[in-house]
């Protein structure tokens, strides 16, 4: 139907108050009023947003905090796990070397005094003496305040702190790199014969000759050449030859015991005190033996 402009006021009024415009206006006002009264647009939008919630990004402050909390939790968990692993490894360690190897530089581990005692008693007497004398250790253990031992790996070895309950240091010990090296040698063996090891060149002796010479030394010297003969006894096989190293480490000289285990040959290394090894070497080479220790590292 063609629309024509109202020509006069009457027609205009008539058209304005016709059913259709009134219904349209009522509809518009109805919509507006119902929205104001019932908030249906908000509810509709809200329902739409609830339905699309799962597909939206986890962004905004609360999610950021959530992520940071998760990262912090994971980082702390890693720190604690590493710490506990170090602790466990250290508790099960068979030697100070194993403790040192299990720690990163400047990392430390807290153990009980008995853990230190156990590791200390594993050491050959001369090395143990070098770390702390048994009498001094007895003294420390007799203190009520001594509750924990802290091991810290440092550039120059392993630092050991004896602590009271408030982490105050009662005594500090240094197991330096040389001593750790000695401890390592004390536990070391390699497959093969002494001929493959240049440091023993020209100082390799038949076993019987070496052991006879050892037997002829005074008790004190014998103990310092071979502090733990039971270690050799525990090894299956027969000692064939003994070598004396040309290197001195921390007042000790390494001895190499070549052992024939039937199917294979191997060399077991044991450090002896320098002054005592010099005595047996003199004996082996037929020189006059100076029985008084001539180094200051008297046990």
């Amino acid at each position: 139907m063609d629309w024509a402009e109202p020509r006069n006021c009457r027609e205009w009024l008539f058209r304005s108050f016709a059913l259709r415009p009134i219904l349209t206006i009522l509809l518009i006002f109805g919509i507006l009023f119902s929205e104001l009264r019932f908030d249906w647009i908000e509810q509709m939008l809200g329902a739409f947003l609830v339905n699309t919630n799962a597909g939206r990004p986890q962004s905004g402050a609360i999610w950021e905090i959530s992520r940071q909390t998760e990262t912090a939790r994971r980082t702390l968990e890693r720190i604690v796990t590493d710490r506990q692993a170090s602790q466990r490894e250290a508790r099960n360690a068979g030697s100070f070397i194993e403790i040192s190897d299990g720690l990163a530089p400047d990392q430390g581990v807290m153990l009980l005094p008995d853990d230190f005692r156990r590791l200390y008693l594993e050491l050959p007497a001369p090395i143990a003496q070098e770390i702390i004398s048994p009498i001094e250790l007895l003294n420390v253990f007799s203190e009520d305040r001594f509750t924990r031992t802290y091991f810290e790996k440092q550039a120059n070895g392993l630092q050991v702190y004896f602590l009271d309950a408030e982490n105050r240091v009662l005594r500090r010990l240094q197991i330096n790199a040389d001593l750790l090296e000695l401890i390592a040698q004390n536990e070391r063996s390699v497959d093969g014969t002494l001929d493959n090891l240049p440091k023993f060149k020209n100082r390799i002796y038949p076993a019987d000759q070496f052991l006879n010479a050892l037997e002829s030394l005074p008790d004190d010297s014998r103990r310092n050449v071979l502090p733990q003969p039971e270690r050799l006894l525990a090894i299956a096989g027969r000692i064939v030859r003994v070598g004396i190293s040309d290197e001195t480490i921390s007042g000790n000289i390494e001895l190499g015991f070549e052992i024939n285990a039937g199917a294979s040959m191997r060399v077991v290394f044991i450090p002896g005190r320098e002054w005592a090894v010099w005595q047996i070497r003199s004996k082996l080479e037929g020189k006059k033996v100076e029985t008084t220790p001539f180094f200051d590292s008297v046990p």
Partner: protein
Amino acid sequence: MGLFQKTVRLFRLAFFSILLLSGLTAVLLAGVFFLALKDLPRVPEPLSRIIETPPTEIFAATGERILIIGGREPVPLNRVSPGFLQAVIATEDHRFWEHHGINKIRILKALWVTLFEPGKIQGASTITQQLSKNLFFSFKRSYVRKFQELFVALQIESQYTKREILETYVNQIPFGVGALGIEQASRTFFDKSAIDLNLAEAALLAGLPKSPTRYNPYLYYERAKSRQQTVLQRMVAAGYITSEQADAGASQELKLRQKPAGARTGSYYLDLVIKYLEERYGPEIVYHGGLKITTTIDLPLQSLAVASLQKGLANLERDLYSPAGGKSAGVPAPETFRPQGALVVIETTTGALKALVGGRDYFESEYNRAIQNQRLPGSGFKPFLYYAAFEKLNLNPASVLVDKPVVIPVAGAKDWAPENFEKRFEGPVVLKRAFTNSINTIAAQLVELVGPQDVIKTARRCGIKSRLTPVYSVALGTSGVSPLEMASAFAVFANSGNYFEPFWVSRVEDAYGRVIDEHIVSGEKVLDKNIVYQVVDMMRGVLDEGTGSVIRRMGFDFPAAGKTGTTDGYKDAWFTGFTPTLSTSVWVGFDRDINLRTQQGGGFTGSRAAAPIWAEFMLKASEGEPYREFPIPDDIRFEQVDPVSGCRAVSLSGESVRVALRKGQRVCEADRNSNSEKFESP
């Protein structure tokens, strides 16, 4: 064309314009909706996820919790005082129970005010919108952000009940002073649970979220009270309470907790702890990791330290000349013309920091003068000089030098001619007397003999880490150091030459109590105990008969030693001293380049400005403590000597001075004219 037709056309134009405009607005709104929808954040389920961040807690050495970082203490609505809920609804959103996320009438009103009343801005955010903003959006303002905030509010309203929304809201709003959520706020401000808040307290707390700093009742009590009254009036308007109840609430006295956790006590200290933790573990772990940190702070000592410093500075201000307005007496000077101070307390046998105050008031200035301020220590540096001289030249406290005008040539610079504070010369004098009276010319002769490098080496051995310039005047304290360094370095003298690195965190655990880190209290022998004792004995003389004798006059009679320090022009006043257990350093001065002048034109020395603060603190800190002497090494013996000749005193009366001598050191006999240890400087 008739008038009628013109009118009809105008109407028609207007009608179609409005129609077009409405259509465009609808299209625009739809566009905005989809634009805002593009990166609209996901709402978590359940909404209580916001409280899952474990709090990091900081504890004092004595076990009290002193700060909670992050985390919340959520409480269900039935554990919150109804008065608080009504107050917060009346203040923030009185149609909360009726609307569906937005208050359209309020929005229109706010729009009208914003558009037609220039300079005015009216907020229209409902509680749900505020929650939406706090949970997901930064404070950066943009129209898209505003719409996003609104849409998330609509979703929250559709997804959760009104009670869930209100519960989440009251458990996350910041109230200031580190309190997040109503339970923490109630405990922080009133030391009670949220359910126990009375009307006055509830109204005060409900007024804080608008601006937690501006309405902080500890700082601006009157402003906070005024806001409380506004809240009460809104409650009346909303019909929650009667006018009489509002008046009763307004007139009720508020009993604020005296020391809100983490607020005033130890805030400089806590800054130091948090900085340390952030550097060691990173902010993420500190603020979101739920750490349990045990510090070394001793809360009673910390409170004493704060009170002593504030009292000392107030006393000082009474006599202080203020450059801002002539005399400061009676009239508070502007902040920049008020003196500042710092006080640090170290446990000598461990290095544990027991108390630290970095300024007069943390809320006036967060600048930590105890650690960040590198101020000249003046004569406070002399113990390092005397130790170096005793060690290098085998001098002793009975050695004699002549107090006379001294000019020391300096290569490539002006000659150095230090003066005595008293502007007079005493002639020959034993070193102990020279030390206790802080004679600069003797110190200058000593540093010329020893060399500045050895003085610096001694200071370094004691843990001084600041940059020290290797010039002669370094012995008179012309290189800046912090009070923390001074307290720590003097602890070496208190501890027979053993140095303990100062520390403030002794243990760090995770949220489950598993140890992350613990401090090993390990000392190192850095100085010879016999020489140390000789210096300590001279430092005791400073308190007993020297420049620090004000301390004895104030009644502190425990064995103690120390040294005053005053710099040129009275810019810095120091006293650092120790007992066998605590080493305490006090600095007083201005942040700006202003002298500590008295109203009569004189100056404030370390003895006058800093030593009384030290004494005030130590008097109270030592109450009930056993009387402990400094241990005397076996190789030390004492002699009474004449203060001028340094020879053994004929009688013990009069002017004789008791000196500590090491094995092999001896003094001349009185009948001889010369001192066997007399030392002539070149």
